[in-house]
């Protein structure tokens, strides 16, 4: 793969909206991705393997629960710092960012928000350091956009719960030490349970032959009469709102992450267009390539401002789920369109592993589907502005 020459675009001086600490956190993540992710990621993606040697580094740059308070092993940073870290990691690869998103927003967040003090102390420091890796089980084979219809369930057996069911499309599942699993109790109410690897009847088969997020491990969670200790129930919140609260946090991070993937594609295409000579001039001097590149930087700039404003609202505790849906949907679509256009700027070179573009492009096919599909997010906006739910 070519050396990583990435230079981040900042057309509207968005950096001036950031604090010095935001920039320090962002630049450290950027430098780390250049040094540790870019040189190896293409090879791991081609071989469909998760690069587990980067787990320690992800923890060091604060990618695991940056907003979790310091007393639980987090960094105590704000929401914009979290977003910027996700942006930089996804600039490297959406699969690596997925691992960090899941660990932060879908595992550490629910334990922090809905867990007991004992659960927080037991799990959060180890998850922050990467000693434990986590995954999140909500989606089921027959319940994707409709998670409330889940069939995974648990029964109260006096001194433990008995968990049965299956979850699908679970990032980090094949190597996770702990899983935050959403299941219905005997009355049909959804609760979160912490399931640990090694519990009898719990298995995590890997999903093979993906064309997307190849450097991220995806799998199933299968629960066959798993005895879960009662102290592993997350008592702080139940109902569908509990997992959706986690998804708000993860989707917020994805809205930033997608900007990273888009920036990498734009930067690669811009450099290539200036260097590639056809008809005795750089293709960057032709109108059709300029149209592509000019639209890319326009869309990236809009997405940056959307994410920044959402970060401010979220930091103030005012961001609504519908606002988060809008940013996730807009920014991921922006990124996938830029990846496709950038691929064309590079012509045939765009399809090779010499450049990151096609890897970003196929990764984003997952990102536009997971954490609420592109269509569902549109319907959430539709419901928010009209008062009518069109997806039920």
């Amino acid at each position: 793969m070519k050396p990583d020459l990435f230079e981040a675009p900042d057309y509207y001086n968005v950096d001036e909206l950031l604090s010095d600490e935001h920039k320090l956190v962002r630049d450290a993540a950027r430098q780390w991705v250049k040094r540790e992710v870019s040189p190896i990621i293409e090879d791991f993606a081609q071989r469909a393997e998760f690069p587990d040697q980067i787990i320690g580094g992800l923890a060091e740059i604060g990618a695991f629960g940056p907003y979790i308070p310091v007393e639980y092993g987090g960094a105590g940073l704000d929401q914009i710092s979290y977003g910027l870290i996700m942006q930089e990691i996804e600039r490297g690869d959406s699969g690596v960012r997925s691992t960090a998103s899941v660990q932060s927003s879908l595992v550490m967040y629910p334990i922090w928000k809905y867990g007991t003090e004992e659960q927080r102390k037991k799990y959060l420091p180890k998850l922050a350091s990467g000693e434990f890796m986590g995954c999140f089980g909500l989606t089921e084979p027959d319940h994707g956009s409709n998670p409330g219809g889940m069939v995974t369930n648990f029964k109260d057996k006096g001194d433990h719960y008995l968990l049965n069911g299956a979850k699908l499309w679970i990032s980090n599942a094949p190597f996770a030490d702990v899983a935050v699993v959403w299941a219905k109790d005997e009355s049909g109410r959804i609760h979160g349970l912490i399931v640990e690897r090694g519990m009898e009847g719990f298995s995590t088969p890997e999903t093979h032959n993906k064309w997307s997020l190849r450097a991220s491990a995806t799998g199933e969670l299968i629960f066959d009469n798993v005895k879960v200790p009662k102290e592993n129930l997350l008592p702080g919140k139940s109902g569908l709102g509990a997992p959706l609260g986690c998804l708000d946090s993860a989707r917020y991070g994805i809205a930033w992450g997608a900007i990273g993937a888009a920036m990498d594609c734009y930067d690669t295409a811009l450099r290539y267009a200036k260097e590639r000579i056809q008809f005795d001039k750089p293709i960057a001097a032709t109108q059709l390539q300029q149209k592509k590149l000019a639209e890319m930087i326009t869309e990236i700039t809009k997405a940056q401002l959307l994410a920044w404003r959402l970060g401010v609202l979220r930091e103030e505790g005012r961001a609504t789920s519908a606002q988060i849906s809008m940013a996730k949907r807009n920014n991921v679509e922006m990124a996938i369109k830029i990846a496709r256009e950038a691929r064309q700027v590079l012509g045939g070179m765009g399809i090779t592993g010499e450049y990151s573009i096609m890897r970003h492009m196929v990764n984003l096919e997952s990102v536009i589907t997971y954490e609420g599909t592109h269509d569902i997010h549109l319907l959430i906006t539709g419901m928010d502005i009209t008062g009518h739910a069109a997806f039920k």
Partner: protein
Amino acid sequence: MKILVCISHVPDTTSKINFTEGDTKFDTNGVQFVINPNDEFGLTRAMWFKEKQGANVTVVNVGGPETEPTLRKALAIGADEAIRVNAEATDGAFVAKQLAKVAQDGGYDLIIAGRESIDYNGGMVPGMLATLTDANFVNTCIGLEVEGNEATAVREIDGGKETIQTSLPLVIGGQKGLVEESDLRIPNMRGIMMARKKQLTIVEPADASNETKAVKFEKPAPKGAVKLVSPDNLDELVSLLHNEAKVI
């Protein structure tokens, strides 16, 4: 051992360079600033002395408030404290006098400066600083060990190396070789969090004047167009080199 590391706040090496005010001033608009690479090699070596020999490391910069993020980064990498001399740094003698005042007030054993900053490439400060503080001086330093009061420094010389035995107090003008690029440190989250609590002291400049003044900057002439000559057509190549380029 007390170490003072002098940090210049310089444009990133990929910056687009332009000048304003009739080509007398560097245009900082849209430019990202970093720790001067020669200083960063020195800072990384200082971290080694801190971790292996218990040294205390202070970083210092002469510059306005806009240079503080660069000092914060040095703190996040592991320096113990930072000092900013609140003055614009445009003249080597002026900067050396400010640093000498900080060095004398703090009583440092070892002062690590970069051989030169990569922006204006003056290269004057380390030597002047050694003179002003009455310390020994090793320039173009690519290796440094300290035992007690004795220092062994390796210098890059034309086509080879020179090993020098000297003693503290010592000023070095450091460069790549003190550590390698792969040794440079990325601030980790713990370092960034600890940097919040570390002292960044702002001191007003000592009485000194600028002895030089830049009156004009010029960029290199833009590269000319490239003419491609077919490998089969050597006569044309020779003719172009002789008649057009006039080099043969």
